[in-house]
């Protein structure tokens, strides 16, 4: 995939992750994993402090890379009380997690749901 197309996806990602769509303010940070370690071409991280939610989005060269990377990331994060979500949108892979075992767990779960829904795009 050309640099131009990667940039196009990242530009699209900016729109998808706008606070008006995610319904929560997200701070841009580094992705949890370096993109090259996952075989991705690019990556962007997002963070919410309250509730505490961490999200990484990676851009791949094709849709075929998603599944194996998604399973690997889920396994790494598997822990009681942690809610992990992965999703795809075109060549982009979403990986997000939050704790749902505290008093604000239900809110954190639905907040992460809003974020992943915004990323996934309207249909």
């Amino acid at each position, binding site marked *: *995939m050309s640099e131009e*197309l990667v940039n196009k*996806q990242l*530009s*699209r990602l900016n*729109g*998808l992750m*706008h*606070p*008006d*769509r995610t*319904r929560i303010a997200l701070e841009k940070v580094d992705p949890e994993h370096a993109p090259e370690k996952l075989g991705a071409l690019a990556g962007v991280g997002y963070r919410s402090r309250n509730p505490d939610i961490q999200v990484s989005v990676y851009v791949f*060269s*094709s*849709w*075929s890379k*998603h*599944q194996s990377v*998604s399973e690997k990331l889920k396994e790494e994060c598997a822990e009681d009380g942690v809610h992990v*979500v*992965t*999703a*795809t*949108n*075109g*060549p982009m892979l*979403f990986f997000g997690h939050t704790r749902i075992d505290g008093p604000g767990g*239900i*809110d954190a779960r*639905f907040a*992460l*749901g*809003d974020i*992943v*829904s915004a*990323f*996934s*795009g*309207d*249909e």
Partner: protein
Amino acid sequence: MPSRTSKTPTSKPRSPNPEKAAPTVQESMQESLPENMTGQLKSSQVLQLQRLIGNKAVGRLMKDRTVQRESHGKGCNCANCSSVQRTVDTRRVADIRRVDKQEADVQTTRIQRGFLDDVMVFFGVKTAEEVRQEGLAPLDKTKWNKTVADDSLMKDIAGKISVKDFIEASQAVKPLLKTLLDLAFKYWSSISLSDLEPVLNAATSDEKTAVCSDEKLLTKAEGALGKDPYLTFITRIGMNQPPTTTELGEGGKEHTAPAKADEIIRDKMSAYVTEAVKKGRKIEGQVGIVAGADWDRAGVAHYGDQVWHRATPTPKKNAINGFVDGSGRVWVERNSGNPGTVIHEGLHKYSDGAVLSTLGFNTNEGMTEYFTRLICADLGITRGNYTNNHDLITALVTTVTTKEVIASSYFDGKVDDLKAAFIKYRKDTKGNTEELAGQIWDAFVSNMKSGAWAKASKCINDDLDSDKLAAL
């Protein structure tokens, strides 16, 4: 576009290219002109005359002699005129036999050009099928190939018969869809989608794919059909552009083809979509998986230029993977979404619509996504779309009622059954009165509509009395 009923007989010379072995008109007349041409002639006899002695000659004949038109004029298409009756004087026929050599040669050429000419000249009142039924020479591959290769002849034909008749006539040789559309869009400037319906319906998927990949042809199609019909045309030919990646042809790692989506939905949802299938619901033929200009055309047509390109904070085109437009056409962007996108949109097509109209957008999307993910889980497709909507419908299925009740409300419109199940659940497991249970249902619907997911969840899971309900 010229009207079929406004045609005039033609005797205009064409570029001479007679087949050498063909008989002259005079020879043909000797062989086939009936001895007795007196009395009333049927249309087939008139046509035979026309073919033998030429249009001009028949025109003179018709002008000079008695023609029983009564109340029916030239071009009349009524049942009585299906066999137009004309009186011809034998002596006049004999005069006409002395047609000069030049016109004879021209007419010989014309006769050899095939029955498309016959359609053109038959006073403009006969369809190709009617002419064919009257036993005229059928179109064959040779005549077809000669005709369509002759630019001037094609222009002449386009000026004299409708594209619909041309397409109908062409079916005698069944040309490829791309070939036929190339000709139609080249020689006819204004074409209705209904003119193309028969060939679009009959075309194979390979033929449609060939059309989809011909950008020049698609440009011509837009020009000839007009903007909105062109969009329908795109869906009718099943435009399915693969994603732009470095690894093409990955198989299963791209948008699901609409026909495949129908197959999957009908298989995986077989217990629920019987009525929907009986009603003819499907997604094939209604989807365009597109990119670039076509994606913009469809988006602007549905959302308007401002919303599509410039809405803040996010232009619609950057936030959406697919949508159903006001005409029921489904549009999917080739590099967006996932292989479940077409299945999701397909399920919308199978749904009754009552959930959307009574319970609102969010619940409707939640049910669509619930069934989408049931299907996608089997196919190894991970989706994050409408996650909260999906999770709350899942809560209804696991806590309140059954998958079957959700399915009958979604696919068959039995929303009251879902409401009844919800009220029964609240009464039986939470001890609510009928009245309070009804109020909690209303609150659930309302919170779903506004996207207040946590409150909607509490309507399902929490012990609620009137005060707690009011405090939600």
